[in-house]
């Protein structure tokens, strides 16, 4: 049995078509289960597998699914794949969708069957042209082979899958903003409860899962919960797509066991820092996670372990900061992104982020004052806690800032003291 189920078909030789996918054992789980297995058993299997959501929050998938009320026959039930991968520094779902699109389709089919959902959407980032084209062609292949559509594989079960191309906002990655956007409304997150399981797309029961999460489903169904758990090195089950960007020798994305150490990822798979550059810090799982430093290199990439160190594993794709790039400039750049991507619904995020961005730009430009750091800290406290804001966007945006102020405070102070960026001219 493969130790890298998600990427087994990805060898850099183009997308896997339906024949190749089937040849590698694809759609076996679908053929064995659709119309045959008891959805309740499948749900139990996913619960037993300890699969945690791969979108960043790490919520147990089986538990998330169990909140969907029993089918009432009064209308549609939806499964949505969140393929709006817009987290800066994250490019894992793209890898799967471009190279093995049937894996996502089979994952959605099995998930939808488990949830008694009859309509599925793949909500995909508009810039992912190649993935969109390949998923669309895969869907039509799957429809021809009766893996999608009415009476799938001769069973009584029907599932219709459509691709919806996002209009291009980071906030659409938030599942309820995604649903609003899918309905044609402003992409504003919803207040929870009610959760999408109860009132999701068009007010109907809905599950939104990350692409990578869904892609794990066929393998768990094929090989069982214990196999899946055994894939992980430590407490977390399964494999995970990890990756790194920044000034490493070999930036990229690799499927590795959960619990692989950061050191292994950065030094072995990413090949270490480029010559002449030293590791100064890194965001472990995308732009909205707290900085960690070289002191944390031996931590395993697991949800709890990273959380204990004061950050989040997030998407598992690291953004590396080297010693010749300005941390203030990097944070200012990140906050510019987050301020721009605020949906504008709640006050702390809408007004607070641009203020923070403005102050950071000012400091980076050498016009900062000592009082600015106080405002930054006060704003970070105001915006940074979940519950203070309508959704997790602004608290996420504050993570690199708060941790940056913790680890790189002297650099902020130096900018202010010198009236210039000490890294100016470096590259």
């Amino acid at each position: 049995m493969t130790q890298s189920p998600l990427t087994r078909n990805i060898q850099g030789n183009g997308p896997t078509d339906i024949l190749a996918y089937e040849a590698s054992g694809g759609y076996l789980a679908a053929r064995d289960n659709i119309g045959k297995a008891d959805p309740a058993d499948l749900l139990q299997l996913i619960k037993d597998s300890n699969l945690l959501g791969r979108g960043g929050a790490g919520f147990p998938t089986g538990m998330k699914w169990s909140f969907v009320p029993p089918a009432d026959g009064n209308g549609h039930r939806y499964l949505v794949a969140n393929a709006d991968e817009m987290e800066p520094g994250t490019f894992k779902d793209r890898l799967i969708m471009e190279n093995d699109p049937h894996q996502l389709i089979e994952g959605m089919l099995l998930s939808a069957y488990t949830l008694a959902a009859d309509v599925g959407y793949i909500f995909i980032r508009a810039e992912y042209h190649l993935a969109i084209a390949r998923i669309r062609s895969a869907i039509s292949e799957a429809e021809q082979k009766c893996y999608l559509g009415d009476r799938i594989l001769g069973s009584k079960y029907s599932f219709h899958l459509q691709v919806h191309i996002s209009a291009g906002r980071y906030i659409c990655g938030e599942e309820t903003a995604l649903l609003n956007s899918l309905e044609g409304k402003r992409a504003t997150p919803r207040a929870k409860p009610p959760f999408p399981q109860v009132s999701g797309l068009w007010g109907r029961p809905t599950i939104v899962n990350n692409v990578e999460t869904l892609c794990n489903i066929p393998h768990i169904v094929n090989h069982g919960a214990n196999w899946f758990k055994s894939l992980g090195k430590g407490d977390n089950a399964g494999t995970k797509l990890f990756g790194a960007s920044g000034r490493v020798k070999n930036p990229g994305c690799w499927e590795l066991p959960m619990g692989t150490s950061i050191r292994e990822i950065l030094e072995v798979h990413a090949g270490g820092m480029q010559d002449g550059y030293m590791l100064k810090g890194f965001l472990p799982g995308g732009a909205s996670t707290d900085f960690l430093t070289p002191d944390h290199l031996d931590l395993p990439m697991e949800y709890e372990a990273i959380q204990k160190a004061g950050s989040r594993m997030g998407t598992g794709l690291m953004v590396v900061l080297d010693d010749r790039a300005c941390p203030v400039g990097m944070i200012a750049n990140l906050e510019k992104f987050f301020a721009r991507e605020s949906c504008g619904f709640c006050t702390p995020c809408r007004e607070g982020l641009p203020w923070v961005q403005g102050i950071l730009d000012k400091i980076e430009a050498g016009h900062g004052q000592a009082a600015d750091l106080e405002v930054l800290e006060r704003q970070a406290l105001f915006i940074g806690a979940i519950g203070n804001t309508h959704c997790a966007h602004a608290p996420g945006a504050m993570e690199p800032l708060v941790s940056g102020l913790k680890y790189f405070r002297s650099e902020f102070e130096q900018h202010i003291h010198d009236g210039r960026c000490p890294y100016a001219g470096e590259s």
Partner: protein
Amino acid sequence: MPTIKVDNQKLVVKDGDNLLQALLSAGIDIPYFCWHPAMGSIGACRQCAVVQYAGEDDTRGRIVMSCMTAVTDQARFSVATQSADQFRKSVIENLMLNHPHDCPVCEEGGECHLQDMTVMSGHSVRHYEGKKTTYRNQYLGPFIGHEMNRCITCYRCVRYYQDHAGGHDLNAFGSRDRVFFGRVESGLLESEFAGNLVEVCPTGVFTDKTFSKHYTRKWDLQSSPTICQGCSLGCNTYTSERYGQLRRVQNRYHHQVNGYFLCDRGRFGAQFVNAESRIRQAGIRNSQGLYDATELKTAIGIARSIISNASTIKGIGSPRASLESNQALRELVGQNNYSNGMTEVEQAMLQKIIDVLRSPIPTPSMMQTEQCDAVLVLGEDVTNFAPRLALSLRQATQNRAKTLALGVHIPLWHDAAVREIGQSDRSPLVIVTPTEDRLDEVASHVLRLAPDNIALLGDEICHAIKDEDNGTASDNVSSVAREIAGLLKQATKPLIVAGTSLQHPGILQAALNIAITLNQQNISAGFFACASESNSLGVAMLDNQHSISDIMAEQPETLVVLENDLQRRLGDRFDASLAGIKHLIVLDHLDNPTVSVSTLVLPAATFAEAEGTYVNNEGRAQRSFATFNPAGDITPSYELLDQLRSVKRHIDEIHHVIANSIPTLAGIVAAAPAASFRIEGAKIARMTHRASGRTAIDANISVHEPTPPMDDDSPLVYSMEGQHEQAPANLRAYSWAPGWNSNQSNHKFQQEVGGSERTGDPGILVLTGGGEIKTGDVTLTHRRLVPELHIFGSDELTNSAADLATLVTAPYLRMHGTTAQSLGVVQDDGVSFEVNKQRFSFAVIVDDSMPADSLAYPLIPATVVLTNLDDIQLSKAESWTKAPASGQRMITTDRSQ
């Protein structure tokens, strides 16, 4: 009832409330923006944050938004704790980053919710040094100003406009800190309820343009509690004045009638008080047929001698005049010589409505209609006839969503979630009208029928409810009727809406039969009747004996007409009817065709200048109080009429005369306190305690401080000296409470947020029980001409409000394509017809949604000739040129720099 603990104070709160409602109801001040008592919560502004503790041992707690937090038994909160206080300060500080701080030049200043909340939150020092966002403003029509720079992005405007009022053309555009609230492009806001944006907006983005034209700070206005004169619903308003001009009208909360909102006719139409056509002096027609302005005393003297010398004298009262004035006329001319100023048809229909209101059939108030779960509107274009009701019926369609929400434990204040689960699944609303209706878009069933067929369908529905087949209707009609009957029978609170707008007794009777039949089957069906004018019901109760025709038929030598343009009632018979009258004495506010043929005209005070009692469509007698003492000779009609018979009496005496002579109107005495009413020895002040300029206001005439005008008529004074927020609801002159300068202060006077006033809901329901009602025969009128009502244009007085007048349509005839074809005309051609040897030409509107046999005309002054005609002979108008699109003001881009 859950008990919660807030800062160690125990509160018993209402189950199903959110914490913000509970705190406000308990009198605990907490700042908020995006929540609105009529619109629920969305959690956008984050201003109402408090700390919630997990249990008794939790000392840190966590920040929660009180508007998004359900009250549960034993929950523990703190409003005052430092972290909550600091958080609320930060919200204001951040909201203010882009706010221009232009309070000194902002119309909202002094009654600004943002100002109040800023002060309440305690934020005072600014740390922001960046630039502020600026926007380009839009022209939104003659009523609403737009100043986007002031926006704090609370989303209330679009939630009100789209979700509550069903408008489509106001949106939120853009994202991040550049959200823009406006239209796709400059232009008139389409909703008939757009004016409420002025009160919904917590700051000065949407302002009352008609007020801005002659702007005065709230604290410098003199105001009084008034009853809207725009239709029969009797919405409660605050009317405000300065320098002898009516400045503006605002909503006055009434738990049963208008709640928090008005229609635009009500809000902006009252400017007729300032119209150029206002009659400010008495006039006597001279030998050249022109009027000589005459001193009031002289005119009264002449009128007295006309009356004392008259061989016959008759009086025509008015359903738009107060009970007091009608009673004074009735006493002047004698009961047998008085008509309440309506036609036989209308009188008979009103009698029917009175009978229902006295019967055991439930007659819900306007606010209660919002709870109904199936509505049948038979023959009324509600949006244009009783506009405010349309807003309530829209809410009624949301009851389906509320049921769905409760089914999955979504609290009803969780507005976005309720709408999400409801989607377009609405409670049934059946609209049966001859012409297109704004409510069509939220209706489950829309039927376009000629008036007679509406009556017949109603009859058929009634049979279907009884599971009878009367065999006369076509299969098509009876299957529709069965479906509608089914919807009404399945509902727990069905509602039938009908009224007098089509002047079709058969429709009213059919609607009534449906309500009666449902009630006979133990289905508690409500009946809501709309009448034409602010006091239609009142005068019908006062004296419904003689119609206008009865009076005219006797060819009186002298006729006294009270606030009534007879041309609107008599149509083509107007000239002939008045031809034989030697002396026509008219009391009115504005010039009109009746005034123009009078021999003597007396300047009558409007609702803003005279006290009066009006009975609305649900039989609620409500007192309206004068806002200001009019300049010159303008005098309340009841006083003028008393003077004509040399009597001087107090208005409260008239209340007693009416109460003693008309038992059903006995309640009017208690509709509001009498003039002798005092609180701690003081009357109620019309001006705020902050009113400035008493010494300066007339300084151009004299630097001596003038004595304020005396008000012997009412318990109010024309002064800032008196009681203010202690006033009972029926006397409160403006909404203000310490720290709450805007209309958001409403909750300070309510028993609970959104509930009844602590001092009771204003007015008295005078028609309660004691009567019986039976089904009756449905009669037909065989009338081909159908009046089409217009919120702007079909009301006599508000048409003279300068800004509203720009929206009145040009005359037209709306017809089905087949009719047009047979006449050889197309859209925008003209058609002409002759009445009384006079030729009229109107524009053609081809509309295939019209019933094929009907012709609809707008009920506006230009079409008054059609009022009593059953049919006209049409021909294509030769050499017709399409009139410039009146009713659609040219779009300009004022203030859009």
